[in-house]
């Protein structure tokens, strides 16, 4: 899949970044300066952190230490990391129930994130939220939300506050292809466009809503971004397996939002390599399809690219991996050693 952006706003030549010879200006190559090397290694570190975190979650789910529903972000790391790398500290992020990747990319404490999944008192929400509901308001991370598409108007409201307070901060709202069939998806896109809210609608199109492929449940094919013309929202498609392409496309959209252009829409084509949740036997899709996408695994392809471009040595990559693995092992230990919440916590935080 070619990485490309296709802004679709009509009659907006200044807005659009026209494709050159069928290839977009978002090449995924990025610049090659010294700072870029540091930045790119950081992007890899975050992606690898998410991958290792998710693998550890799966393992501890099997052991029964993590319960409830567990939705892993494995395969989609380039999307969340690339997108979130463009944000400032005063921006908000709103996520869906597959939220671990976004939380870690935002820099939420790894120990406390893991402890939340373990349901412990040291968790981000004292063990009251669990996997699908990670929060850290101090970092502008306004949740993991588990009713499909329910988080969209929340994001619009956070953006409304940013607009009301006359800042140039913005809200990045993640949602999946499944949420586009909810009525509130339309309601929120329209409201945000009418009010020119500083919100970036970030669709992670991983091709499946639980066990239903988009093709089975959506009229009009697998592309959502062309539909944004209806709302007058500039929209672009990007290769969600290419972290630099995601970063560059998002930077462009973020820049426009900060300038007061109103909402923007990015559709990243991506894929989860594992099932919908840990309870999923994946009867609805063939292993061939999964294997095809796995060949584009950003955890493998991105470091290869960095080495090829001379931006990192394989020793450096291995060092990053070793450091992350250690961090994850410590996070699991932290979670395991943490106390269960006191029963008195049952009654706190219901009302302010």
């Amino acid at each position: 899949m070619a990485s490309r952006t296709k802004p679709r706003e009509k009659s907006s030549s200044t807005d659009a970044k026209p494709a050159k010879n069928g290839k977009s200006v978002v090449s995924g190559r990025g610049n090659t300066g010294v700072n870029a090397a540091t930045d790119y290694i950081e992007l890899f570190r975050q992606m690898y952190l998410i991958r290792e975190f998710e693998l550890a979650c799966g393992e501890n789910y099997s052991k029964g230490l993590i319960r409830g529903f567990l939705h892993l972000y494995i395969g989609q790391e380039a999307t969340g990391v690339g997108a979130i790398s463009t944000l400032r500290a005063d921006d908000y992020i709103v996520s869906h129930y597959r939220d671990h990747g976004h939380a870690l990319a935002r820099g939420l404490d790894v120990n406390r994130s893991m402890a939340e999944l373990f349901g412990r008192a040291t968790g981000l929400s004292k063990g009251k939220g669990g996997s699908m509901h990670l929060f850290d308001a101090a970092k502008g991370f306004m949740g993991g939300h588990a009713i499909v598409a329910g988080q969209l108007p929340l994001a619009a409201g956070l953006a409304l506050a940013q607009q009301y307070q006359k800042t140039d901060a913005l809200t990045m709202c993640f949602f999946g292809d499944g949420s586009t069939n909810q009525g509130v998806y339309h309601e929120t896109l329209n409201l945000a466009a009418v009010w020119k809210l500083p919100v970036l609608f970030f669709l992670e199109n991983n091709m499946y809503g639980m066990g239903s492929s988009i093709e089975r449940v959506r009229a009009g094919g697998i592309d959502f971004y062309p539909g944004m013309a209806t709302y007058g929202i500039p929209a672009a498609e990007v290769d969600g397996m290419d972290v630099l392409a995601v970063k560059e496309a998002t930077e462009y959209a973020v820049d426009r939002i900060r300038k007061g252009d109103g909402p923007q829409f990015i559709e990243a084509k991506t894929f989860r390599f594992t099932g919908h949740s840990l309870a999923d036997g994946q009867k609805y899709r063939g292993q061939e399809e999964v294997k095809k996408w796995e060949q584009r695994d950003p955890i493998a392809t991105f470091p290869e690219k960095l080495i090829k471009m001379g931006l990192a040595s394989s020793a450096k990559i291995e060092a990053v991996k070793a450091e992350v693995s250690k961090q994850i092992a410590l996070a699991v230990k932290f979670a395991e050693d943490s106390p269960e919440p006191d029963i008195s916590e049952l009654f706190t935080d219901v009302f302010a």
Partner: protein
Amino acid sequence: MPEIAVRQALKQGLEEALENDPRVFMMGEDIGEYGGAYAVTDGFLKKFGPERIKDTPISEQAFVGAGIGAAAAGLRPIVEFMSISFSLVAFDQIVNMAANLRYMSGGRISVPMVIRAPTGAGVQLAATHSHSFETWLAEVPGLKVVCPSNPYDALGLMRSAIKDDNLVFVAEPALLYGARGEVPDEYYEVEIGKANVVRSGTDITLVSYGYGMRSVNTAADVLQQRGVSAEVIDLRSLSPLDLDTVLGSIRKTNRAVVVDSARRKGGVMAELAADLQQLASEWLDGPIMRVGSEDVPWPYNRGLEQAALTDADDVLNAVAEGYGL
């Protein structure tokens, strides 16, 4: 003391907040240019401007959710439903989002927000436009629900609701917008969660709220003529529910009738009656009698609708049936 209508009392509470707190703003369908379906916000757009008086598309989920987001970010939105019947399409946002955010975030996020909505049957709008969902919402942990029956409480509760750091749902009985009453010039608030003994009595306790107060007040007048002294309690707040005030009254009267103008089945009065039978059985001389509107979809025809709606006769019948008074 000046006498004003409920509509004006609500308007005064909203206007004060808009004047005094720049974080307060309003959203809703046709609250601006049109002036509000029940004219509560008439003139606000001109006075406060379109940034603070926001006309919304007909998208209840989106604008309620947007209110929740704005509140989570530190603003104090006041969101209006044109009718409580339209809140149903936004229940996911109210119940799953607003009520849960604080708990799920371990207390890190609050939703200081007011939702206002006209509620109740009685004006021949038929089954889809006559609901009283405040009774459903009162069950949800994390929400506060109030329902004023007079101008004094309307202003006092609105002031408290806007100052509260939680989501407070203000159900405004549609039939009472024009009801008049005295409101003092001096500033006051009505505490959320405190019932009001509106009439002292010794023989029987009548409990209601909102539009149901019309029926119990009329019934109390009739009982007085019969030499029966009724104590009348206006709950004012459905969540939290002030059990103590009701229990205190029953200790004195030993008799109780609980009255709702919403449908009888389920709801706040079922909850109240269940608690009372457990906590007050030793003082009660008879069964706690429940009165509510008929358990049918609201009919359009006036005669049918009135037959379904709770009235003073229903209350008097319950008093007679339960206690022979």
